[in-house]
């Protein structure tokens, strides 16, 4: 299974991501999910970035919150809405919105 997981919040109330282990995993950070890419607490990056996955963060939702490319962790690729459409159709076969 090639799964694209959308994370739209910073404080997750579900632990689903911890147990998903598909053959290919993409994590697309949107809305307040983008804080996982930018925010360190007490110097530590979000533990969500520790998975063996490809990470993406939506530029529109970064900039809405006063954030930008320079704030994003190295292993996260900054993408557009158009990129999301391409990822869904071309890189993954199923989606999950947590």
């Amino acid at each position, binding site marked *: 299974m090639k799964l694209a997981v*959308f994370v*739209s919040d910073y404080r997750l109330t579900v632990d689903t991501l911890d147990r998903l282990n598909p053959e290919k995993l993409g994590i697309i950070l949107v809305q307040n999910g983008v804080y996982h890419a930018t925010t360190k607490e007490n110097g530590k990056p979000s533990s969500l970035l520790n998975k063996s996955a490809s990470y993406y963060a939506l530029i529109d939702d970064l900039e809405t919150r006063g954030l930008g490319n320079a704030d994003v962790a190295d292993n996260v690729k900054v993408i557009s*809405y*158009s990129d999301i*459409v391409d990822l*869904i*159709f071309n890189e993954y*076969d199923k*989606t999950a*919105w947590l």
Partner: protein
Amino acid sequence: MGKLTIGCFASLVGSMSLDFAVRLAGTALDKGHKVDLWVSGNGTMLSIKGQRAFKDYSALEKPLKELMEKGLNVTACEACAEARGYHKENTLDGFKRHSMDWYLASSFDADRVLHIGGE
């Protein structure tokens, strides 16, 4: 080119999930895909006619109409809408209302389904 079915269950103004869904739908349409958008639960708010566009609130009536002209197929869960007092006569022109099986039927021949359920 494929078909994308988006289901959105979140609220219009409370979260920005509907803004995301509408923006994504528009982008997919512009790229030549077919898009069905289903709104259920609080998402049925999107179907109401005469939303006032204040700058303090997310306002989606205008962008939605533009997308419908471009071919967006958009349907609200009829029961979810009625339970909230949203009736046929207050529904945006061209915004369909059906029972929940419409969403499942849309997914039947969809290449991808993005179900925005969380909250």
